């Protein structure tokens, strides 16, 4: 999964699915991806933020500065309804892709 191509194709899906339940800020997204992939996938500033801005430009996510008492001012991102649709269709094609790969691999194990 360290391959840049794979990462590029799936990075959007990762971010969209992490924003599906709640709004999050960039650093939080970074840490979540690291933790859930057990450090298999890692984003740096130079890769994460351009991606976030691209998704925002496409209207799939929307960023907003939020100030909470006793915390730093942070930019939170949430999924737009448009982004939710994109997430649904990417999830579907990703599952199909994974299923396809599994079918190819299976006979060799058999």
């Amino acid at each position, binding site marked *: 999964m360290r391959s840049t191509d794979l990462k590029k194709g799936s990075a959007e899906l990762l971010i969209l699915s992490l924003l599906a339940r709640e709004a999050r*800020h*960039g*650093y939080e997204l*970074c840490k979540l991806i690291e933790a859930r992939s057990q450090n298999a996938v890692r984003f*740096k*500033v*130079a*890769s994460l*933020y*351009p991606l976030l*801005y*691209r998704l925002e*430009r*496409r*209207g799939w996510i929307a960023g907003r*500065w939020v100030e909470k008492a006793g915390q*730093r*001012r*942070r*930019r939170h991102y949430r999924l737009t*309804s*448009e982004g939710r*649709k994109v997430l649904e269709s990417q999830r579907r094609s990703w599952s199909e892709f994974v299923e396809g790969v599994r079918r190819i691999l299976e006979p060799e194990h058999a």
Partner: protein
Amino acid sequence: MPDPSTSSGSPRAQSRGDWKPEIRARIAALERAADYDDIVEELAQHLEDRYDELVGEGRSEADASRLALEELARDGVLERALRRVEREPIPPQPAIGRPTSGGWWRGLSSDVRDGLRALGAAPGLTLVAVVTLAVGIGANAAIFSVVNAAMLRPLPFADPNRLVSFWGSAPAMGLPVVAYPEGLYDYVRKRNQSFEGVAAYSNPSVTLTGRGEPERLKGAVVTVNFFDVLGRHPQLGRGFVAEEEAQGRNRVAVLGHGLWQRRFGGDARIVGQAISLDGTPLTVVGVMSEGFDFPAHAELWLPLTIDPQSLDCWCFATVGRLRAGGTADSAGREMARLNDDFWRDREGKPRTNPGDPPKSLIIAKPMSRALVGDDQLPLLVLVGAVAMVLLIACANLANLLLVRANARRRELAVRCCLGASPGRIVRQLLVESLLLAAAGAALGLAVAFWGARVLGRRAMDRLPHVQDVPLDPAVLFFTLGITLATVLVFGVAPALRGGRVDLQEAVKDGARTTRAASSRRLAHAFVIAQVALSLVLLVGAGLLLRSLANLLAIDPGFRAENVLVGRVTLPWPEYRDESRTRAFYQELEARVGGLPGVQRVGLSSSAPFSSGNNQQIFSIRGREPQAGQPKLVASVRGVSTGYFQAAGTALLRGRAFETTDTERTDLVAIVDETLARRFWTDGNALGHQVRLGDDGPWRTIVGVAASVRHGDLAAEIDRYVYVPTVQMPSVEMDILVRGAGDPSGLTAGIRRALATLDAAVPLYDVHTIEEVVERSLGPRRLTNALLAAFGLAALVLASLGIYGVMAYSVSLRVNEFGVRLALGATRRDVLALVLRQGVRLVALGVAFGLAAAFGLTRYLEVLLFRVQPVEPLVFGAVVVILALVALGACLVPARRATATNPLETLRAS
């Protein structure tokens, strides 16, 4: 651009809050991006988080700083990535925040929501537009419906275009309408070639007796072919047959639907049964269908027995059904020829020498026009007024929508920039306009239904042939169409042109484009038109109001207040004996005079403003007209001794009739002032003698009474001859009772007094004189009230229009005012500048309006009473009112202009 490795040499420099210089250095090329500062802050936050985390893991501050900065990657990577994002095209979106997919209909509900929100955001403008629409649609549809029912809709007869009415006219004798006598009718019906059939009818009142209370009814005596000529036949039983014209066979009647329901419970077995009319038994042969009450709301039809020799009663109206291809004109010419033939046959020589002007004319008109008569003009005036209000309403709507569209230009342009397609924006505006139109149309329909009901009731009272006034669907669709088209065109047109707008230009604050200037010119034209039309309407309303005021100021010659009038008809032949009639009425007058609450009682053969008006030829002794000279006609009244005091008519000379004037003493008469002044320069007619008819007895004039008006305050005053009723008894009299207060409670007492004299005699047609005078003013008041309402509506609409345009114009020139104020102009200068513009528009409108009013008011002349069509007072007052209101409407935006803050406007540009 600093290297992260060199930066690591001074770790404390990367402590909290100091990441930004590093970041700025790495993306310096993006500095001009709109969100540059946001990006820098967000990335700084990220590095700070990372630094805190590393320190928390036990790293040294220097280590943490270095590792955090590694996040930014090598030189140029971040910058290139961000630039790629910037260059990526924005995918097209229908409108901001709206789903892209789902087809044309998907976004419609959200468009409706947005539209409602947009309309709600400008409640004043929305309200004015909706009210404008409601007035435009409602008033037009209602008034057109009345006009349609009265003038345009066919009469409720079969093939009504072939029905022609004809009558005689003797203007030289002061008799514009002369009904036909039986003999002439008989002559015409046997000889004419123009008609398939000719019917004659009159409408006497009859008394239904026998069952319950005697009831006075509006009846009709008609020739047996009456129903055939009109092409309407009874729903039960039959009409009359030819034999029923013969004396002795004519004891039959056809009932009206209302009478049948009311008196006979709608019992179908009534056909063939006997009823009693004025004591005479008749057999019911038929019942007419609902709604048929011609002529004059008749409830009962009786066959007319024609005596070809009789010229006794010149009281029959005629209607003929043209043969195919005939016209009213050709029929009229034939009727005129038959008229001459009739008199020549009868008198053995032509009535007029060749070359002399005819003594009488025959006038033939299509029945529809004959029935509507004089009512046509007020209706046409109202239609004209309605058309003007419609125009004003449309101009106003157009203006409101133009102003609105311009106010929203930036909003629309921003949406264009955000990717909304022109089609999508047009649809949004279309939905908004439709919402506005729907609200206006709904309210307009309510106004139309209500208006048609109210106006219809008034019209039906006045126009005998109008049965009902349904709201005319064609008219409704027409007005709906015009106003809604206005809304759609002016609501959406700005958006259609929006596609060609330079978006950048539009988005920039305070943009001026030629487009704004051209729509402003259009708005100015609308304002001028509104002012002009309003002026015409107001002048018309003003002239009519002044006419009404003049009418109300007229002295009718009697005191109308607190006088109750009822009609009494003694049955024939029981009261054939004149002495019996005389005794009955003398006793009635005495008994009613003794009732509590009664001040005065009088009898007259026809009370002022009651339906009858007996006119007769008269001559003055020593001044009899020579052969060939026109004869004189006067209104003749038989009155009792108490009449003048009961009616409140002053005696100017001589005396009233007294109890000493009896059938055995000298014959006397009283004439009115108009007659007296016409024949005696000093008006002193006392001692002179008059005669009624060609060969009546001479009567000595013993008094001169004030002139009175009968039936119409605006009409020319008739000449009057009063005769004591004892010297000219009549079975039919009006009883006038002057009460101490409101006389309507006296009816029961009069009825009781009447019943003690003869239980079979009803009191009918009971009314107060005030009521009938007021009723005679009804159509005039209706026309006036409507025109005044239109004038007011026009004034309000026009002032709103002026306000809207001036406000818009001021908003466009805010910059200019700012510059002027900055350059030293005073607020007063700016106020004057705006007012000058408003004054120019209003002055132009007034000029056009005056020109139109000068041209149009002469069509009102027939409706005016003692007012010139170009009355300076009315014209002057209207111009002043209009100018004041219009300037008031300019003043609000003008004051707003003076409140311009020069600094703000300069900064904005």
